[in-house]
């Protein structure tokens, strides 16, 4: 029964989700909304699991004397407690994160800059990854390098300045647009079609119970 019940639930929910796509009549749409609500409730309860696990793992790391992670564990526990206490008692009550509260102050002045910093790192990583990706090691890689060079040059003003003598429609920005609109989109669509079929096939396997490895075991 440990496998059968989850498999039956997957089958029932999967079939209802497919049916409601084609039949807008009650009860199908309502059922899907209900399933979505249930998932939200499950997620809400699971937050406790995550929070407690984070504290447990960090405490273990902190208590392990030779662990080089112990100081990070202390930082995690203190930050967790700080944000939890301020969030619970200084966030504006039921309004949650009202402007001007201490929680809002932390969010705007600590969380947001930290997130932005992580996002900004992408700019540097794009440069290093591009450096490796755009090396002319083979015929295909050379083609990619050439396309990337044209697109990058066409996306900045100097591209059109260099090719300003050419008639409109043949300048670098036009070439870049053409590459992005046709070959690039064609490639992306081919991948998207494969993905869509892959999702359909995987979903069918899950709904029919052919694929049960997510329940543990083979």
């Amino acid at each position, binding site marked *: 029964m440990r496998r059968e019940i989850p498999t039956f639930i997957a089958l029932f929910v999967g079939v209802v989700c*497919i049916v409601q*796509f*084609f*039949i*807008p*009549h*009650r009860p199908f749409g309502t059922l899907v909304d209900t399933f979505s609500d249930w*998932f939200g409730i499950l*997620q809400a309860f*699971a*937050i*406790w*699991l*995550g*929070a407690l*696990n*984070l504290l*447990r*793992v960090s405490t*273990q790391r902190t208590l392990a004397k030779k662990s*080089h*992670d112990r100081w*990070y564990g202390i930082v995690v526990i203190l930050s967790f407690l700080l944000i939890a206490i301020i969030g619970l008692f200084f966030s504006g009550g039921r309004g949650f994160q009202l402007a001007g509260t201490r929680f809002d102050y932390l969010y705007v002045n600590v969380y947001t800059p*930290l*997130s932005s910093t*992580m*996002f900004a*790192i*992408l700019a540097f*990583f794009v440069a*290093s*990854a591009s450096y490796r*990706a755009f090396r002319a090691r083979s015929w295909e890689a050379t083609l990619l390098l050439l396309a990337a060079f044209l697109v990058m040059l066409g996306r900045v003003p100097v591209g059109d300045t260099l090719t300003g003598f050419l008639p409109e429609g043949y300048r670098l920005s036009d070439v870049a647009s053409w590459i*992005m*609109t046709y070959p*690039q*989109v064609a490639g*992306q669509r081919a*991948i*998207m*079609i*494969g*993905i869509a*079929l*892959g*999702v*359909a*096939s*995987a979903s*069918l*396997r*899950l709904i029919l119970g*052919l*694929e049960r*490895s*997510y*329940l*543990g*075991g*083979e």
Partner: protein
Amino acid sequence: MIVLFVHGPAFTQSPPSDSMAAIAPTVAEPPAPHPPTGVRGSDAPNDNGEAIIVSWNLSPDDGAGLDNVESYLILRGTSPDGPFDTVGAAAAGQTSFTDATVHSGTIYHYIVSAVALAPVPGGEPKPVYIQSEPSAAVQGVAQWFHSRRLNALIAVIILCSAILYFINAARSGKSVYIRKIGGLEAVDEAVGRATEMGKKIFYIPGTQDMDEVQTLAGITILGRVAKVAADYEAKLEVPVSRSLVMVTCREVVKEAFLNAGRPDAYREESVYYLTDDQFGYAAGIDGLVMRDKPATMFYMGAFYAESLILAETGNSIGAIQIAGTAMPAQLPFFVAACDYTLIGEELFAASAYLSKEPKLLGSLKGQDVGKGIILVTILVGIILTSIGAITLKTSDPEKLGPYNIGQYFEVE
């Protein structure tokens, strides 16, 4: 029933009141526009009966005549005598509005009110409302079939039939050929390398929850990786960003160790939660990677902008990296930064590929047949369009536009 009145200090786009009955007629200030005519309601097609399309003929003063119509307010009542409540607004020039707040089976009447700005000497202009006649009775009716999705239904039936046919064929012993997938062939090698080096294996099952098929596909591959890791006695660590994923991953890793005959080697704390936050998770993984310097990194599941941050950090410490995702915008990053990348559908094929289970392999063959049908359809479409037999059209011109470079940096 035509009422002319002035209300409120200044015109705004928002409805002036919940009930027109509450709006007291005050001073009439000509010139007022003529009201819209021919107000009618019709049941919105292909829905669950909770929408009605209201349409009307423009006021003669909308774009012509006095040309002073600013907008229209749509009012709804359950009786032609009122009261009528404001349910929405439409800009001047528009002749329809979809009221998506109705109850299926309830009878409604609609009034459309033209709004104009009446000049006030020495002051700001005041809005003037002039109402149409109420519409005939209309009600929302739930439909039993979404007629515009007939093509999708046909596609689903064909695809599912092909998949089921090949599953049955594979069950009955017919051999199924599938090409080699480099990334999956390299799983054993990657785990073996970590074992030889005495370093950890990090497995990242994406940043989405259990309702995402990619996460499920990633967890399926985790089962295989965990089994090989248990066989080789390698150290496996699975930091996750969702609590439900953590629970599932624990079950899968535990079962894998059990199946490998090494239940004693399973450590519950090897699968742990970091944070739901996208960049907090990326920062957490980066910290772990820089400190622990794992020999092997797996990224299998749904990723957003954090993909390159993770993969470049793994690359910087020289880890062997295998990635797989069905997020087209993130694929180029994984291809650039990882040793092997499962591209799109390969991620979903992994479970069949790794298990060699005939039923699962059959579903891959069915998938290929679906791809062949789509290919033929596209070719026929190209030919028909080229000779002018059909014309492609889209309701949203934006959909035909090129992909925006901004999507590559999508924040969840």
